[in-house]
């Protein structure tokens, strides 16, 4: 496999950034990792994952859709769409990489979301295999191998070198573009590392969590489960889980009056919010129980029902560590399963 020595990462990043915009996970001052636009000298974070998911690249929290310009009693409609430039997201973990597939199923299905597609088309996703998964990881539950991530191209560290592997044409093009920095390397140590990682993955506390009892056919079993009351009673109705989630894809479209025009924009919405999908007649889900149920039913039942059994969760564990009251999909799955 082609490889580069880890101490030459700077050179690699410089080379990528010379031709297109590069984003890498970097540590910010408070210690958390976030994707940042690469600038000289920036160091790759050694954190397991970024605090916010990578979905922002394709589905940003807010996005202007169209402007209306008002002059007296006239209104002009202005398309504010900008063609995206090519960019590389480096160091995406297996879970986030899978989340893109899930988002694609939503935004690239007819009618195609052209804003999303534009960014997706211009991106190259370079993933990186995990070597130190955390207790909150349960990507395996959804058939994801943290040591063999998807993406256009993937890379693997054996502690000294970074090995590259292309998964498609885009990925191959990316590797070709940096091939001058790469050399063929021996993967025997890497194989050990991967073996070890897989061992660890098996030992994680959530390793045995299974989706066997969930899926598109479970609507009736779970919708009226008496567990929802107990599960949702401590839910604060905040949007933390939704906003750190790599697969949550609900949004709201709003108009902002700037004084000299209207900016129509979309922004993330959360099914946990009291005004979620509020319509002229009111709100279809009046209680927090219903809203809470919606989130988990969507991920575990509705989404697989509409997407050939694919679940709306990738087991990244962000909600497990960020929920203010530590209620999460794992607890929900375990509670529902118990009959």
């Amino acid at each position: 496999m082609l490889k580069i020595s880890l101490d030459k990462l700077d050179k690699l990043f410089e080379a990528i950034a010379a031709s297109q915009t590069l984003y890498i996970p970097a540590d910010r001052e408070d210690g958390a990792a976030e994707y940042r636009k690469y600038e000289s000298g920036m160091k790759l974070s050694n954190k397991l994952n970024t605090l916010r998911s990578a979905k922002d690249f394709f589905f940003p929290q807010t996005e202007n859709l169209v402007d209306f310009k008002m002059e007296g009693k006239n209104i002009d409609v202005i398309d504010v769409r900008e063609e995206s430039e090519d960019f590389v997201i480096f160091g995406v973990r297996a879970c986030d990489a899978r989340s893109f597939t899930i988002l694609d199923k939503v935004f690239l299905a007819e009618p195609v979301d052209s804003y999303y597609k534009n960014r997706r088309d211009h991106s190259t996703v370079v993933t990186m295999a995990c070597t130190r998964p955390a207790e909150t990881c349960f990507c395996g539950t959804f058939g994801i191998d943290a040591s063999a991530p998807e993406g256009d191209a993937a890379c693997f560290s054996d502690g000294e070198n970074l090995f590259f592997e292309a998964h498609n044409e885009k990925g191959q093009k990316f590797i070709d573009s940096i091939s001058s920095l790469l050399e063929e390397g021996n993967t025997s140590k890497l194989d050990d590392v991967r073996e070890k990682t897989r061992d660890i993955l098996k030992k994680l506390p959530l390793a045995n969590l299974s989706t066997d009892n969930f899926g598109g056919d479970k609507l009736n079993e779970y919708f009226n489960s008496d567990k929802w009351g107990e599960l949702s009673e401590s839910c604060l109705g905040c949007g933390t889980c939704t906003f750190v989630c790599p697969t949550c894809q609900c949004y709201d479209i709003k108009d902002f009056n700037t004084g000299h025009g209207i900016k129509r924009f979309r922004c993330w919405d959360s099914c946990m919010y009291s005004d979620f999908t509020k319509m002229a007649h009111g709100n279809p889900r009046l209680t927090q129980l219903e809203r809470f149920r919606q989130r988990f039913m969507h991920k575990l039942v509705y989404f697989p029902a509409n997407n050939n059994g694919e679940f709306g969760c990738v087991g990244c564990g962000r909600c497990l560590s960020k929920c203010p009251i530590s209620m999460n999909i794992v607890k929900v799955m375990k509670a529902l399963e118990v009959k």
Partner: protein
Amino acid sequence: MQRIGVFVCHCGTNIAATVDVKTVAETLGHEPGVVISQDYQYMCSESGQNLVKNAIKEHNLTGVVVCSCSPRMHENTFRKAAAAAGLNPYLVEIANIREQCSWIHKDIATATEKAVILGKAAVAKVHLNAPLTAGESPVAKRALVIGGGIAGIQTALDIAEAGFDVDIVEKNPTIGGKMAQIDKTFPTLDCAACILTPKMVEASQNEHITIHSFSEVTDVKGFVGNFTVTIKKKARYVDETKCTGCGLCTEKCPMKKVPNEFNMGLDNRSAIYIPFAQAVPKVATIDPNYCMMMKTGKCGACSKVCSVGAIDYKQQDKFIEQKYGAIVVATGFNPINLDKYDEFAYNQCPDVVTSLELERLMNAAGPNGGTLLRPSDKTHPHKIVFVQCVGSRCDDSKGKPYCSKICCMYTAKHAMLIREKYPDTEVYVFYIDVRTPGKNFDEFYRRAVEQYNVHYIKGMVGKVTPRSDGKIDVQASDLLANEQLHIDADMVVLAAAIEPDKTARPLATMLTTQMDTNDFFTEAHPKLRPVESATAGIFLSGACQGPKDIPETVAQASAAAAKAIGLLVKNSITCNPCVAHSDELMCNGCSSCEKVCPYGAITYIDKEFRMPDRTTALRRVASVNPAVCQGCGACTVACPSGAMDLNGFSNSQIMAEVDAICK
């Protein structure tokens, strides 16, 4: 869809000289919702108003913006015009392009630009104006006067004179208050009782006046025109309706060692008593703390001698509830307690007295029958020292920061009376300043100094020490001569500061009126509304509002009566529709709004609401009484959820103006 008319006034050249009114009218004509935009020479003139009225009818306008002078000038004019044309008057907004534009700016271009922006702000606001209707609230045709001193009596007489029923609530067994205890009045030196007691009798005989003596207000509910007051008639153990005031019981009562409050404790009364001969009502009262019958069950002397059987040892407090349209507070004042003034030896020496005690000592109905004698040995004093400002104009916590106002004059009166009656008595007055602003006041004071040779000394008394020989050593400084003085006086008279009655503060809470830090009631405006409290329907009479002498008190009492009558003659009152209102669905019931409301207009009710989960729950929500709310808006900012909003100046209206201006 809104149909707004814009009317730009030239105001002759007042506006048109600096603002290009045509441009303003034309530009505003392009604003969303504006269907007609006109300019005219004088919009406030008859024909200008007709222009507006016709436009309202012709274009079926939903809102009107007049760009003209200040709304303080003609807002009402245009509101009336709109109303006459069938448009709700509160759908009119004024853009002030004269006082706040053409008159202060010189450059036509920038002034015009600003006028347009102000016009746009008004258009933006009027888009959100809601039609408002001034509510009406009925007025109960009865007044309550709290306090039966000269202030309360005068107010009650004036209100009764106008033909309205008035109730006086007096906490003591008789009305009359402080004035009844005073001997003579300055600056005319006529006898206080001679001028007061006829008024007391007049009050008791007036068919419109009901006197609740020995009574207290215990609860006040409601609002202007519609108060419900609970009055406690304290048990006096004598049936008021039967007692003839013959006084036989007071003579026969064996318990005669009760300090006599009326005479400031300078002599004693019996356990059953009538405070003084001219008391109104002239009804006996039993003091249960001293009555043998009440304490031990053995006696009953009064009951035996009472030929009408008025004595009732088992009498209970009685509560009556009454509706009033107006309430006048006349709770008066008291001299402060001098216990903390050790330097003046008030508690050590009986011959150190307060001025009010001196009044009683000199009064013909007083303990000495009008002869001035020392309380200690009943001898005639030959040297009397008066100390001014005892506790007045004081920075420390013992006293009061304010001037008690009446002391300078009554001390001059005392000094003069003593010198007149006892020329062999020397009188010294120690003062900080002598304040005599009042008709014939300074002349009066000068007479004391010049004609009666009262020794006025600028300086403070440092220490008063009773000596074993019965004399009192007064150590003082003479600031003008810059020397220390020692006077061996026979008597010392302290001009104690006066303070509001202790019942005033709990009463203010009940009435939701405001008090200052000294517990004087706060008037609605210190200059322009001196006899009204900030709470509608509550008026202030006499010294409860601030230190006052008798003429001022009577003047204010009549003024308060006039204000109360002005309210009582109305069958109903029109309420300002620009008042706060609470959106019950958003209200948290947290009480923040209530805390900042200066009028007590906000109350809370428990109301049943449908909850999201289809159950119902009881929630505490704020409710604004539009008859009481004056529309300041303090509550709207105190409310975190924005449930509280203000008609005419709503959050969205003000923000629309901000947006328009900042556009």
